[in-house]
């Protein structure tokens, strides 16, 4: 636990608006990236980002410093986001079922691979098109770097389900990215 985190939290609790802005500037872009990808919507992510910091402001009194402020905010953001997704899709798991048949099948006939470094904008667009359930698992695992045990804990699913959701997401992304890339561009790789 870093001493400057505790000091910043103390100043925020005492109503120091500049300290709270420092906290926001330090963490907002990481949280906004997470929320945008988890929800697939920059608009929803913006609302959630506000909710996260409003909630953080209210809950700073309970911040004891067991983790860093960044980790504490990250947990708040993930929980806020999951509440949002559960509200929006009352049965989140159902939204991923349709992926099974079409995407986890045997690979298609021989085709050139995607570029090794996929353009960021293409990947962001494709992630936004994923169903909410597997998108959340994919973002937490492949983008944020959580392991399957941590993803399972965050999403309230088993480790095996996390693996399955991430796999579905990757297969779906492959299809989306291949259909987005002009045939000529693929063949030129």
């Amino acid at each position, binding site marked *: 636990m870093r001493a400057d985190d505790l000091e910043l939290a103390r100043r925020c609790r005492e109503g120091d608006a500049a300290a709270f802005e420092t906290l926001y500037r330090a963490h*907002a872009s*990481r949280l906004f*990236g997470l929320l945008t990808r988890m929800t697939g919507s920059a608009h929803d992510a913006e609302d959630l980002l506000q909710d996260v910091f409003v909630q953080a402001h209210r809950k700073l009194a309970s911040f004891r410093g067991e983790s860093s402020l960044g980790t504490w905010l990250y947990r708040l953001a993930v929980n806020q986001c999951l509440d949002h997704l559960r509200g929006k899709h009352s049965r989140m798991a159902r939204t991923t079922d349709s992926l099974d048949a079409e995407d986890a099948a045997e690979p298609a006939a*021989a085709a050139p*691979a995607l*570029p090794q470094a*996929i353009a960021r904008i293409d*990947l962001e667009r494709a992630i936004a098109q994923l169903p909410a359930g597997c998108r959340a698992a994919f973002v937490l695992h492949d983008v944020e770097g959580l392991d399957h045990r941590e993803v399972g804990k965050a999403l309230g699913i088993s480790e095996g389900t996390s693996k399955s959701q991430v796999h579905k997401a990757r297969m779906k*992304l492959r299809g989306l990215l*291949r259909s987005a890339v002009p045939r000529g561009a693929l063949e030129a790789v």
Partner: protein
Amino acid sequence: MNDDRMLTCERLVDTLDDYLEGRVSAIVRADIEAHLAGCPACPALVADVRAIRESAHALGPIEPPAHAWQHIQERLHLHAPGRASLLDRLGLSFAGWRPLQPLGAVAGLVLVVSSLAWVGTRLAMSPDATVASSGGSLVEFQLAEAEYTDAISRLQEAADAAGPRLDALTSATLKSSIDDIDLAIGDAREALVREPGDALSQESLLEALGSKVALLQDTVALAGDIEPGTEEQNP
């Protein structure tokens, strides 16, 4: 398809993630690599998934829009409520603000009021606010209200003294805003007469009192900003 191979394409799909994430035994790894060496389709699948993983991992933060912070400030009342909007409406700014001598006396009061706004906000946002009728919260509310009322009374005197230095349009706009806030204060107080422990009415009253404090501060500050002969410099 591929039934003659030790590892089928279907089986490779099942083990692909474990393979890419290093969770397979040496034997399974050798089987997969033998399959990849002879299969016309699977190498592209492996390369695609590897590219997706690596590209996803390289995605960085996304900068939120600038107004997101402003909205958070507004929701948390992190600056004096009403101040910016009023100044915008009047088309005035505090650039080059030089307080007049009599106004220095309110500087200490402004500091007290700033702390008070924070107390009021915390009280309004407290999870206990929904049960504010319980002793502690009600006492805190009454203390905050008394402090606000006292601050308003003292600021009102300074604002009345500053009034003649304001032009007619500014005075009229300020008066109209004060009248609106007084209506809100009256409504909240009426609601509290009917239900003294109602947390929402308490929050509304403190918010309205805080707005009045901020507006009176603006009035005093504007009078300091507009010295005789300088009005025409403002847009």
